[in-house]
C-alpha cells in the first residue's frame, strides 16, 4: 500500500494528492496523540487526510480521481503545526500552488485559535445566553430525507421540524408581506418571536438571527447551547458552518453568500407557533 496525503478542500474539482514522505510519516506517528478529528464540514478547507492506496503512484503530485480506490487512515485538522508541515510538503510536491497555500495558512491560524478540531475555522464560540437553547444535532434534520426536504431555516431556527416548510406569519394567520426586514420581522413577531438588539443577555428561550437576500429570500440562524450558531439552508442539510466553511461565532460577521442584509436578533421559544 502507498501512503498518500489528500488535501480536502474542493467541492467540484478533484482534491490534490501527493506522496507522504518518511519524515512526515514519522512526525505524524509521534504527534497524533490528540483527539481524532473528522475534519471540517461545508465548503472550503476541511483538513488533510492520510490515505492508503493500492495504486502504484509514481508521480509526486496527482489528484484523487486518478488514484483509484483508497482508504482514509486518519484526518489532520485543528493541529496548526502539523497542518503547516503537511501544506509545505504539498507545496514542495507541486500539489499546492501559492494562492491555495495563502488561503490554507489563514485557515490554520483560525482553527488553531478556536481550539476546536470539529470546525473549519472562525473564532471561539461566545457564551450562550438562551437558557433553553437547543443542542447542535444535525442528524435530527439530515438523516431522514423527508425531514430534510420538508423543513427550512425557519423550522430549524425555531427547533420545530413541522415538515411544512413553515413561513413567517403563516402560523399566526398572515404570511409576510414583503421579502425585506420590515416584512419578515413583524410576521415572525406575530408567530411569537421577540425582537432584541443583542444576543448577550441571559434569558429564557434561545436566540435566532434574521438576514435577507434583498428581494429574493430570507434566512435564519440559531444559537445553539454551545454558543456558536447553526442553520439549515432551505432543503439542504443543517450545518454549523458558513459559506466559507468557518464556524459561526456571530451571524453578523459570517459569510452569508447573497443574504447580505442583517436584520435583527430575535428570541424564540417552545411557545412560538409556526406552520
Amino acid at each position, binding site marked *: 500500500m502507498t501512503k498518500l496525503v489528500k488535501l480536502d478542500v474542493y467541492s467540484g474539482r478533484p482534491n490534490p494528492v501527493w506522496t507522504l514522505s518518511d519524515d512526515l510519516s514519522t512526525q505524524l506517528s509521534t504527534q497524533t496523540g490528540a483527539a481524532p478529528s473528522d475534519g471540517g464540514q461545508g465548503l472550503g478547507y476541511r483538513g488533510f487526510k492520510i490515505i492508503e492506496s493500492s495504486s502504484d503512484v509514481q508521480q509526486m503530485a496527482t489528484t*484523487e480521481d486518478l488514484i483509484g480506490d483508497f482508504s482514509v487512515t486518519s484526518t489532520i485538522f485543528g493541529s496548526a503545526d502539523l497542518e503547516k508541515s503537511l501544506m509545505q510538503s504539498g507545496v514542495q510536491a507541486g500539489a499546492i500552488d501559492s494562492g491555495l497555500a495563502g488561503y490554507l495558512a489563514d485557515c490554520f491560524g483560525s482553527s488553531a485559535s478556536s481550539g476546536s478540531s470539529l470546525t473549519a475555522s472562525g473564532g471561539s464560540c461566545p457564551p450562550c445566553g438562551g437558557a433553553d437553547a437547543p443542542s447542535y444535532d444535525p442528524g435530527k434534520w439530515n438523516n431522514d430525507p423527508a425531514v430534510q426536504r420538508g423543513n427550512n431555516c425557519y423550522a430549524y431556527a425555531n427547533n420545530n421540524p413541522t415538515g411544512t416548510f413553515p*413561513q413567517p406569519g403563516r402560523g399566526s394567520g398572515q404570511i409576510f408581506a414583503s421579502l425585506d426586514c420590515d416584512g419578515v420581522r413583524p410576521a415572525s413577531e406575530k408567530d411569537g418571536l421577540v425582537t432584541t438588539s443583542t444576543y448577550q443577555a441571559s434569558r429564557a428561550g434561545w436566540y435566532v438571527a434574521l438576514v435577507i437576500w434583498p428581494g429574493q429570500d430570507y*434566512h435564519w440562524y440559531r444559537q445553539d447551547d454551545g454558543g456558536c450558531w447553526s442553520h439549515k439552508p432551505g432543503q439542504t442539510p443543517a450545518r454549523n458552518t458558513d459559506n466559507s466553511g468557518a464556524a459561526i461565532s456571530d451571524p453578523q460577521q459570517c459569510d452569508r453568500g447573497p*443574504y447580505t442584509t442583517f436584520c435583527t436578533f430575535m428570541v424564540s421559544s417552545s411557545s412560538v407557533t409556526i406552520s
Partner: protein
Amino acid sequence: MVVTALVYSGIPNPSWTIPEARAAEVSRAIAGIPRLDRDCPPQGGLGYSGVRVDIPDRGGAERTWIFAKGVAVSGDHCYADSGRKIERLLLESGRGRVDAALLETMLR
C-alpha cells in the same frame, strides 16, 4: 420528472416538471454519466447550491440526483457531470418558469 433549483432558504425553491421530450434527453444523459471513486462533495450552503431532479421509476419509487459544480450525487455515490452539462440542461428546462435574472445567475 420534477426539477428543483436549490437556491432559497426560507421560501420554497423553484420547481417544475420537465416536458416528456426533454425528460427523455435528461434520462439519456444521466444513463451515460461516469461514476467517481472518491468522496462526494458536501452539499448545501446559502444561495444557489445545485439542481435536484426526482426521476420516478416504473415501480412508483423515485431516484433523486443532485447536480452541482460538475459533480452529481445520487444516494451514496457521486458521478462526473463534465462541464456541468446535465446541470445546465436541467436548469435550461426551467426557462420561462423561473425568474430570468435568477436563472442566468444559476447558469453562470
